[in-house]
């Protein structure tokens, strides 16, 4: 086997990288130590958001990515529940609302559609929402996707071209370099794959893959839990979340942070997030966290107090110290590219990530400047 590109990681980001590379005319092997969407993607919620991004390189990437997601959904026949439902960010207090409205002004200047909604008009958008809120902002560009279906269908479409091979239950054990220090192959549990390009799309475990190539990448896990309700008739129309979610996403606090995020799904269940904690890869269920999530959700949708929860699931967001993903070539190892560290936005940013990675490999100019996402920003340390 001698593909142009080996993608490590069969989540949404890896899938989008594979698809973009195939569309650019390259041959691809996707390897994953587990199943498709079995890691970071499987623990996620499926957000394609512009609303939670402050002006800057990540917002530019998000705006591009939502366009690419819409195109992908069109060409793949609505196979992964892409729903352009829009986001509704609400504030419980006037001072939070003031902050939210200023934030929306800044976003609007960068091309985000953000429409202030007075407290009295909130029920027009969400009939079952609390009448005790201070107001909100509607973001019609926010979308939602079923992330596991998306990863599976995007990889399937790439494989259907005949130019992509998927290898699951196939752990990567090493990355080989030639005498010049450039990538020459990937060692796996099922043998060596010769290639000149490796894309590290290993999500929260991206640092481990980088270490196999002898370089450091500061990606750490940020745990989150999601509550899943019984299936209900449609009650929540948008992705609805509390304004302090944005502050939590950008926070450097290591302790527990929770802010209400509530959204319905095609299957009728309502998903309730979002918690953020830096506790390593500890997956122990924490009832205290679940209780806080439920309480905050009820403050926004009081009827949830009468609804049963079916289950909960958790995952690990891959975060970098500066909260930006790592996208692009690693100057320390020619042929090694990173596409990981997207924190909670890997699904949303996945389409654009694959797009620019494929552009870079084929020598095209990238749609977005990759400098802010470069692994070079962390310094040039090699693993001893």
């Amino acid at each position, binding site marked *: 086997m001698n593909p142009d590109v080996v993608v490590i990681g069969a989540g949404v980001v890896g899938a989008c990288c594979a698809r973009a590379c195939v569309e650019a005319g390259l041959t691809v092997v996707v390897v994953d130590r587990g199943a498709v969407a079995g890691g970071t993607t499987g623990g996620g919620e499926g957000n394609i958001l512009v609303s939670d991004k402050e002006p800057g390189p990540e917002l530019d990437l998000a705006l591009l990515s939502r366009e690419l997601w819409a195109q992908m959904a069109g060409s793949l026949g609505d196979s992964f529940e892409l729903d352009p439902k829009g986001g509704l960010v609400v504030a419980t207090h006037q001072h939070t609302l003031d902050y939210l409205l200023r934030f929306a002004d800044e976003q609007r200047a960068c091309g985000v559609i953000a429409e202030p909604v007075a407290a009295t008009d909130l029920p027009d958008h969400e009939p079952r929402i609390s009448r005790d809120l201070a107001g909100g902002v509607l973001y019609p560009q926010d979308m939602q996707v079923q992330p596991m279906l998306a990863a599976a269908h995007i990889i399937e479409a790439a494989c259907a071209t005949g130019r992509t091979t998927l290898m699951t239950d196939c752990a990567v054990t090493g990355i080989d370099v030639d005498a010049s220090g450039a990538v020459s192959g990937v060692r796996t549990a099922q043998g060596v794959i010769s290639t000149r390009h490796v894309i590290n799309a290993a999500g929260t475990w991206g640092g481990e893959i980088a270490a196999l190539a002898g370089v450091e990448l500061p990606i750490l896990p940020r745990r989150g839990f999601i509550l899943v309700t*019984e*299936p209900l008739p449609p009650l929540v129309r948008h992705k609805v979340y509390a304004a302090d979610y944005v502050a939590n996403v950008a926070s450097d606090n290591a302790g527990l942070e929770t802010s209400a995020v509530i959204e319905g799904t095609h299957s*009728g269940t309502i998903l309730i997030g979002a918690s953020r904690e830096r506790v390593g890869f500890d997956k122990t269920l924490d009832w205290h966290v679940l209780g806080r999530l439920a309480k905050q959700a009820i403050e926004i949708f009081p009827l949830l107090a009468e609804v049963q929860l*079916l289950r909960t699931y958790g995952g690990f967001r891959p975060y970098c110290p500066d909260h930006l993903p790592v996208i692009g070539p690693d100057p320390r190892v020619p042929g090694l590219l990173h596409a990981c560290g997207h924190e909670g936005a890997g699904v949303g940013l996945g389409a654009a990530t694959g797009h620019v990675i494929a552009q870079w490999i084929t020598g095209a100019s990238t749609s977005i400047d990759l400098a802010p996402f470069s692994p070079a920003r962390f310094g040039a340390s090699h693993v001893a």
Partner: protein
Amino acid sequence: MSREVVFRFDGAPYPGRDGQTIAAALIDHGILSWRRTRVDDQPRGILCGIGVCFDCLITVNGEPNVRACMTGVEDGDDLRSQEGTGYAQ
């Protein structure tokens, strides 16, 4: 021998035994399905039997989405087949 209870299923009375789950009590009478799925209208009853799969949901005394495999049958229970989400659409 455990005490006999009487429950109703879709309006008809049935005997059961105290300590049985709702699922066991229904299967005792040859009733294998008590829910229809919300998308494709397919029949459902017991699958895992240990509370994990949420396939055996039933409406008990007006409360929908109760797991028949994890809930004991009580004397006087009013059990109803569940259509879809169990809530009025």
